[in-house]
């Protein structure tokens, strides 16, 4: 592999992109999904994440043009130069131009938009060409490559990770939940009696903690992956009590006993664990049952036995007038909550093998489900 001279790279891990115009060869939504799929190729092996802007200036601007199109590299009609892209940087840097004179397709005839986009997006992230024929970043288009079974070559992965490092969760032993008989202590995800120790979001993903393990539900893999907690955060204990994500701090706070830790991605923040009493809990509280932070109000709810406290993330202070009884403000929710998750505008309270979907507006339980329904059981 090679990087552009000077190895330019993005100094942030979350990038925006925008499709400025569309080729008449394909339906718009197919172009959008091809671009999204091409980005996921790089997202899967780096800490990078991407979001699409419907308008305005994005880091990666994507357009179709023919012939002379405003830069010093006019396209050349059908064939030969299919597209080009610029290395990371402001303005036209980081942009992708597709030659409109090509016949863009999503199959193996013509020029497959997904394959070319994945290559060009490699350039926008800082990769130059590779001289390995099996590499995506090899300059000559490979018509025999099957777009439906596409995989980055090790050369591509080595190249992009030389710029951005691996995906935060990579390198862990993903214990396959189907192909081998699980070791005795690995909890079976579809065990009807399965309960969770804690549940949290993490940068758009869901984490379900149980004993020494967690299941991870990510955006690009509908199948939950089971991992050792220690594979991500070696210094964290197992058999956790509670966990929640404070979006405004891009941190997940993890509780066990009278201690709590803060993690950002795969990093445990320095200065932790701290005592839960620094949050304002009275000495009588010996452990937290469950916690959840409301993304909209930036208020965090801590559940202990039949009571709950409310914490202000902005002021980093416990609100006055607490604790209150859970049943007074969350009618239908039993005490001793195992875990709480906020999703789709609801709060999901986990008790043993069941979960209650609570509508905070209607202030009532709207559904009762199996706890492991999130794990495709």
């Amino acid at each position, binding site marked *: 592999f090679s990087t552009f001279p000077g190895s330019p790279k993005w100094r942030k891990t979350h990038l925006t992109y925008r499709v400025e115009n569309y080729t008449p060869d394909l339906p718009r939504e197919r172009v959008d999904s091809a671009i999204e799929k091409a980005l996921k190729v790089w997202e899967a092996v780096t800490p990078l994440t991407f979001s699409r802007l419907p308008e305005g200036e994005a880091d990666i601007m994507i357009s179709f043009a023919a012939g002379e199109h405003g830069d010093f590299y006019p*396209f050349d009609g059908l064939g030969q*130069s299919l597209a080009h892209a610029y290395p990371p940087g402001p303005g036209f840097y980081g942009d992708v131009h597709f030659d409109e004179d090509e016949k863009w397709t999503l199959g193996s005839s013509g020029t497959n938009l997904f394959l070319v986009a994945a290559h060009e997006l490699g350039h926008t992230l800082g990769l130059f060409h590779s001289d390995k024929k099996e590499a995506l970043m090899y300059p000559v288009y490979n018509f025999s490559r099957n777009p439906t079974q596409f995989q980055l070559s090790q050369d591509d992965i080595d190249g992009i990770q030389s710029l951005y490092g691996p995906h935060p969760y990579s390198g862990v032993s993903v214990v396959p939940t189907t192909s081998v008989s699980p070791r005795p202590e690995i909890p079976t995800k579809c065990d009807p009696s399965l309960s969770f120790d804690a549940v949290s979001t993490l940068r758009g993903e869901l984490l379900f903690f149980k004993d020494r393990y967690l299941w991870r539900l990510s955006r690009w893999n509908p199948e939950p992956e089971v991992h050792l907690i220690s594979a991500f955060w070696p210094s964290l204990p197992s058999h956790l009590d509670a966990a929640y994500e404070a979006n405004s701090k891009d941190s997940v706070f993890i509780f066990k006993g009278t201690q709590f830790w803060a993690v950002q991605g795969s990093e445990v923040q320095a200065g932790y664990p701290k005592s839960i009493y620094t949050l304002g809990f009275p000495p009588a509280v010996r452990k937290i049952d469950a916690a959840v932070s409301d993304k909209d109000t930036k208020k965090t709810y801590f559940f202990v036995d039949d009571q709950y406290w409310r914490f202000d993330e902005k002021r980093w202070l416990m609100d006055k007038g607490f604790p209150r009884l859970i049943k007074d403000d969350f009618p239908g929710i039993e005490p001793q909550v195992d875990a709480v998750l906020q999703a789709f505008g609801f709060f999901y309270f986990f008790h043993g093998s069941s979960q209650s979907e609570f509508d905070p507006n209607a202030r009532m339980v709207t559904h009762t489900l199996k706890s492991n329904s999130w794990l495709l059981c």
Partner: protein
Amino acid sequence: YPLQGAVRQDPPSMDFAQHYLEKYYNLEKNEKQMFRRKESSPVVKKIQEMQKFLGLEMTGKLDSNTMDVMLKPRCGVPDVGG
């Protein structure tokens, strides 16, 4: 039978190859003039540099294998250089 005064037309591959090397392998202006004398070492070196990168036998000549790969659709970003 060479026609008197006829301007000898380079075979299309010569112009094409020259353009390809300029665009993707940084063939410099001064080397361009020498392009017609295929045996000139800077151009041979450039052709060999390209053949090496693309995984071709480094003959230093625009043989058919080399021309075949050069004619294939590709990315417009150069293979070497700034």
